């Protein structure tokens, strides 16, 4: 796993990349990440996740996402 200090750099790059047109990412990322392959890999996998992430993923609260039977047993009306 990447170290905490470099993760801060990864976050900065991802945050900026999300404001850049996707088709410009390859050259833009190459310029931003330079020779740092680890940062480049972290950034690209996070950007890939941004293209697939379900909008509902951990939106709401943990209690709302629990199956009904986890919170209560059903009783007939």
């Amino acid at each position, binding site marked *: 796993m990447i170290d*905490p200090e470099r993760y801060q750099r990864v976050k900065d790059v*991802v945050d900026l990349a999300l404001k850049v047109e996707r088709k410009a990412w390859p050259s833009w990322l190459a310029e931003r990440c330079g020779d740092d392959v680890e940062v480049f890999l972290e950034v690209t*996998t996070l950007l890939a996740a941004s293209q*697939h992430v379900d909008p509902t*993923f*951990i939106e709401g*609260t943990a209690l709302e996402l*629990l199956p009904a039977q986890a*919170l*209560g047993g059903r009783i007939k009306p």
Partner: protein
Amino acid sequence: MPHSTQVTQLLIRWSSGDSEALAKLMPLVCEQLRDLAGGYLRNEAAGHTLQPTALVNELYLRLHGCRTVNWKNRAHFFGFAAQTMRRVLVDHARGRKRAKRGRGERPVSIDGSFDLMQDPQSLDLIRLNDALEALETLDPRQAEIVNLRFFVGLTVEETAAVLDISAPTVKREWKLARLWLYREMRGPSTAK
């Protein structure tokens, strides 16, 4: 007045040195969490009545126990609430998983594929907990933001007030943390 507004106002009073605000804050937070559980139960009922089980009872008991703690600040207090919620819910999810295995049922959400997140009900809390533990070592503040938002249900503004950072910072960190956790939960192909 909505609870969230009251909570925010009490947080501001507390941060300004009003020690009485803390005493009023605790029951409000407990009530907010109870409302979350109650609202969920009502939504799920659909013609049935749902009876709170040991999970909800345990949650209340543990949260009421925090009245005796000497709180250092808002972050300490809400951090406790978030950790309590998380521990109770994850322990419960583990118990359910063990019970399913015991009955020979196929566990839910085992492969970590993107599909497992398509249905919010199938979110695997155990995997989320594992990913959050990894994020805590990498970026403790980002993990704390997730704890407060997801396990306590604080808004962006409330989270910002609790952690004494700006709302835009919370939004940015939340957005990036979601991506990081989502990627981690995809499975073994994740870059680490």
